[in-house]
């Protein structure tokens, strides 16, 4: 029985590239074993005891649910779609800032009289009454669609499971409307579809999720801490600049405490240095100037490690429950 932590990442496509970029950026690149195109395993550079498993993004949720893997990177839309009660079996540890998409209800542009889910319910009822058969909704997101339509009181419809390009269904006559994932909405527009303003079901990002049902040994928790420390430190560092200024220790201490309190800065390694939220550096510079500290520099931070690591603490607490 392998003692390694198992982490699943998408095996192909843009999402795979973005995940690889993310891990490289965090200093723990994914190194693939075997032939470049094969779906074999891999490991994380610089992190011992980790097996990287490549699989289809759509299969990752089920593996997290069963505990076959400890960690997985996949879309929030897939977690919600594939798992009935995601909170009971996994925790979304961190959203990763890429892979953004919206799950939306999209209808033909020509339906100029339909602007809301309430209008849609009306149209569906009339369609059933007139035609005798139900309005068809083409989608891959069966569970999410059912839940959303039920919440809006629409019962007069049938789901037609989409195997290919969902957005082509209304034009080909396979369905009347669709529920699909979109980022810019361009593909929908290209197919003469429009998004209902209150038909945005979910806004989804790629996220790193941890399985609560998996068995976690001490060695695996150690590997988890390592990964979360690196990822967390990189994510935190990206939101901050290191601000340095000249001055006597006592004066510097005083102004630092004020900046920490007023601007949410983190204490630096010396009184003349603080880690500032990058949006606030000009405000902080003005405050320093006003206090007589004229020359201020701001530089990037590569990693900002905190102890405890809230990502790790949050997840292990979920495990203990």
């Amino acid at each position, binding site marked *: 029985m392998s003692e390694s932590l198992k982490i699943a990442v998408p095996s192909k496509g843009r999402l795979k590239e973005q995940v690889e970029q993310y891990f490289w950026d965090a200093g723990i690149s994914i190194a693939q074993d075997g032939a470049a195109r094969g779906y074999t395993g891999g490991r994380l550079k610089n992190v011992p005891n980790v097996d990287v498993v490549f699989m289809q993004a759509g299969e990752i949720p089920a593996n997290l649910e069963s505990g076959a893997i400890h960690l997985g990177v996949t879309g929030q839309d897939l977690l919600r779609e594939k798992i*009935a009660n995601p909170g009971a079996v996994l925790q979304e540890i961190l959203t990763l800032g890429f892979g953004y998409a919206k799950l939306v209800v999209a*209808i*033909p*542009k*020509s*339906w*100029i*009289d*339909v*602007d*809301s889910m*309430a*209008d849609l319910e*009306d*149209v569906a*009822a*009339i*369609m059933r*009454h007139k*035609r005798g*058969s*139900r*309005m068809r909704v083409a989608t891959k997101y069966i569970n999410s*669609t*059912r839940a959303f*339509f*039920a919440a809006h*009181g629409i*019962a*007069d*419809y*049938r*789901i037609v499971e989409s195997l290919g390009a969902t957005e082509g269904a*209304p*034009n080909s006559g396979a*369905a*009347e*409307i669709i529920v699909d994932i979109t980022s810019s909405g361009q593909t929908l527009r290209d197919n*003469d579809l429009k998004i209902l*303003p209150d038909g945005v079901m979910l806004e989804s990002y790629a996220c790193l999720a941890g399985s609560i049902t998996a068995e976690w040994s001490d060695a695996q928790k150690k590997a988890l801490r390592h990964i979360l420390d690196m990822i967390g430190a990189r994510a935190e560092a990206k939101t901050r600049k290191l601000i340095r200024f000249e001055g006597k220790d006592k004066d510097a201490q005083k102004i630092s405490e004020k900046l920490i309190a007023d601007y949410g800065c983190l204490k630096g390694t010396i009184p003349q240095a603080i880690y500032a939220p990058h949006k606030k550096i000009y405000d902080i510079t003005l405050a320093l100037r006003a206090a007589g500290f004229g020359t201020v520099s701001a530089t990037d931070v590569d990693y900002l490690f905190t102890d405890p690591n809230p990502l790790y603490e949050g997840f292990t607490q979920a495990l203990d429950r």
Partner: protein
Amino acid sequence: MTLSALTDYDEQMLTELAATAGGLLSHFAEAGFVRVEPPMIEPADVFLDRSGEEIRRRTFIFSDPAGAELALRPDLTIPVCRHYVRAGGDRLSYSGTAFRVPRAGAEAQFTETGIEWFGEADKPRADAEVLALTLNALQAAGLGAAPVTMGDIGLFHAFVDTLDMPERWRARMKRRFWRPSEFATLIDNLAEDGTPIPQSGAQAGGGFVAALAALDDVEARRAAVSDLLALADVKPAGGRSAEDIAERLLDQAEDRAADALSPAIVERIHAFMAINGPVTEALDQLKALETGAKDSFARAVRDVTARLDALEARGVEPGAISFASTFGRQMDYYTGFVFEVRLDGLGPLGQIAGGGRYDRLIGDLGGDDVPAVGAMIRPERLIRALKGGA
């Protein structure tokens, strides 16, 4: 989740089940019902066409090797009705297994024992007969007085038809019968400004609708819509023609121009929806809502009376029965009388029996429309209840 809801039946359970179901079936047999056993597997469309995604989510659907979509029957009423379409017979009974995707403590696999009665033109009498048979069968099995809730979907429809409002509003009200909070919202919207769906000027159709509403003439409105659709180069898509779209826009314009529902009507609606209590009291409240006209509502109220009289004639005390104007069973095909026997304190497992009238189902299933009413009992739940809910 499904697997954990499936249980083994041991010898004791099997014996009790056979005895209980057998007892119910003989009771039905004495009343002339003949037993049938339709297939456990049917084409999935048979259930899904009738009931949409709500039922689909609870139904076990699978494909055969040729790719045809099949389903394990989630209940026996539809399969028995299909049998009737194939083979006839007016009084059919059944006792067999049904399957549902389990939710919230309910079973995945269970027995339904029941009856379906086709072709009896005296509907209130048939309704009462079916309810009486069910209650007497439960009593014979050892269940004491059990709370019965009754409703009537046809009565609700007839009531809505007495309300002085555009037909399209009546249609909306009837659709929302199943969802009390949305029904309340609809009435509130209509009472506020006569628009069922609040239209904001910001929405694409909204501004145009406001302009349409300002035109007095129906012909002018129709012409304006045609022009707009031509301008927008609207190609019919998604099964809706330009005519369909125009019709709804015109409806929306009329809604805008229409007066809000009068307080008197709103009060009448609330009075009807509030009827919920012992059936004799409910009947008085219903009669109080009659307008004196010999309309379908008056007829429907007379049917409720006739049903009660027939029940009393069969020895069923009205005291145990309550009537709720908003009571409906979650099956799309009921058209009139509906009832349920539910024991308190057992959660979803408390529903021991239920049934109702479904006059359009046979026509829907490919036969000729025929009056149809039925009821089913859940023997496993009955056994559990008799043992004290263990």
